[in-house]
Structure formats: structure tokens, C-alpha cells
């Protein structure tokens, strides 16, 4: 990864100014051109490394959310994961090494909507389900610095 891409990743996962020319604002801070910034972002997107540039919503304010888990018999993991994936309310869905082996995050505009989705899952999939809404956030999502400020163990 080139230095400019690394600088953009490490500098702008939060605090990107909300202004008419955000790529220009990045360019001014990093001493490059707006076109170079746009090219870097487009390249990251093409590589599948960039989900998007924009807000990560505070889910207690934006709507309702929860972390849910299912204990899926090994032979059913593909089928159940596909059914969970198909729900528009699901944004993350991971298999983990545990008896509770399928973990997914659900978000919805409000609590009533969220509860209806959970009821539908309980009824349609008929497996034990954990509903574990966040009670307190001690560290929220601030992104992943990759360069000198990296907190990622290597």
C-alpha cells in the first residue's frame, strides 16, 4: 500500500469534514491533489477494502439494534447462514468457533420492528437464539489505523 493511501486510511476514518469538497479538504491536509485522493478511494473500493465513506450511525440514536446468536447444528450452518443473510436488517453475520456458532448484528428503525424480526427468526428457524443488546459501550467503533498509529497486533 502506498504512503498516500495509508495516510488517508489513518487520518480520515473519523473526523472527515462535512463540507462541499471533502476530498479537497483531505488533499490540503496531506499535500496532494483532490484527484489523487479520489483515485486512492476508488482504488480501495475496487479492491474490496473500502465499504464506504460516510457516517457510522450511533445505533442507540439511529434506531434499535442487537447482537444475536444461534446454536446451529453443523450440518445446517450454510442453510441457516443464508437465511439470516437474506434479512435486510442483518448487517454483520459471522460463524464463530463455539456451540453458539452463528453471530449476527440486527438493526432496525425502532424496537418494535427489531422484536418482530427476532420473533420471525425464532419461529422460522426454530433453533435456540440469544438476544444480547448492548447495555454500555466502553469503546465504540473508531476504525482501524494501519500505519504508525496502528493498534492492530501483528
Amino acid at each position, binding site marked *: 500500500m502506498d504512503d498516500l493511501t495509508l495516510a488517508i486510511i489513518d487520518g480520515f476514518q473519523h473526523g*472527515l469534514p462535512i*463540507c462541499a469538497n471533502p476530498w479537497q479538504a483531505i488533499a490540503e491536509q496531506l499535500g496532494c491533489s483532490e484527484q489523487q485522493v479520489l483515485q486512492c478511494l476508488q482504488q480501495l473500493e475496487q479492491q474490496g477494502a473500502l465499504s*464506504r465513506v460516510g457516517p457510522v450511525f450511533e445505533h442507540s440514536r439511529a434506531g434499535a439494534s442487537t447482537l444475536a446468536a444461534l446454536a446451529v447444528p453443523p450440518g445446517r450452518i450454510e442453510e441457516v447462514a443464508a437465511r439470516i*443473510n437474506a434479512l435486510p436488517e*442483518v448487517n*454483520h453475520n459471522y460463524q464463530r468457533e463455539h456451540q453458539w456458532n452463528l453471530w449476527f448484528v440486527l438493526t432496525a428503525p425502532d424496537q418494535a420492528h427489531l422484536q*418482530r424480526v427476532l420473533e420471525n427468526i425464532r419461529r422460522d428457524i426454530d433453533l435456540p437464539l440469544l438476544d444480547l443488546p448492548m*447495555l454500555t459501550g466502553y469503546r465504540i467503533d473508531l476504525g482501524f489505523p494501519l500505519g504508525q498509529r496502528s493498534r492492530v497486533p501483528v
Partner: protein
Amino acid sequence: MNAMQQKALRALLERGLPLVEQPWQQLAGQIGCSEQQVLEQAQRWQDEGLFRRFGLVLKHRALGIDANVMLVMDIDDAEVDALGQRLGRAAGVNLCYRRPRRPPHWNFNLFCMIHGRNRAAVEARVAELLEEHGLSRRPHQLLFSTRAFKQRGARYSLSEPQHG
């Protein structure tokens, strides 16, 4: 900006800014507002705390950070806030939350996410964390992820689920 336009703007922002010059102008055109109105609305949401952060949202697996573990612990209710705050500041911990226990099936109330470039690095960091914070003997488990079936941003602007 009316309520419909606000809703439309939120739905567009959930998918991110278009990667073009003057991206807000393009969003404004899509919902029939001026660029200035769209920027003011987004700034208002930012000031109100609707956004946790605003910037690049990466797919860490594609960047080579493809090991991730959910460390779960059972911590006394009286201690969990202080410990959660300490762990939340510790290097390598990207997310730290308190969640409810669901006995008898689930007895863990403190969750940490630790990501890294490989499993060994993550295991080593977890061992250090547990040692540094005196947690090695507390009930805990490591749930490594083995597959990501889905990873995308949250969608709050959804219509009601279908029944049946």
C-alpha cells in the same frame, strides 16, 4: 428540507458518499434539495450525536486483518463498568461492550473484539490483556470467527418486516 427528504438523505448516507467531486451536490440532486441544505442537515445530525464517526469505513479482511476474536467474560456487575473502561482503552481492543447475561445458556456480560493479522498474534494479545488486567482466572471464552457471511453498514431506514 422536509421529513421525506431527511429520510431519503439518511438512507443515501447509510450507503456512503459517492466518490465523485462535490459528492454532497450529487446527493442533493437525488433528493431535490440544495447542496447547502444537505450539508446543514448532515452537520446538524453530527452535532446531535447521530453519527459515531464520519469517514472511511474499511473492510478489514481485505486489508489483511483477517483474524478476529470475540473475548467474552463473566464479570461481577459491581466491577464491570470500571473494567470495561480500562479494557476499552487497551491497545488492540477495537470494541468493548457490556451485554446482558442469559442464564443458563449464556453467562458472559463483557465483550471485547480484538482483530489482528493472524490468529497467533490475536491469541498472544488476548493472553497479555488477561494477564495485565488480572483476568486469567475469571470465567472467559474466546470465540474466533471462521467465516464472514455478511459485512456491511447498518440500514436503519427499512420498511416493516414481512409476516409469514
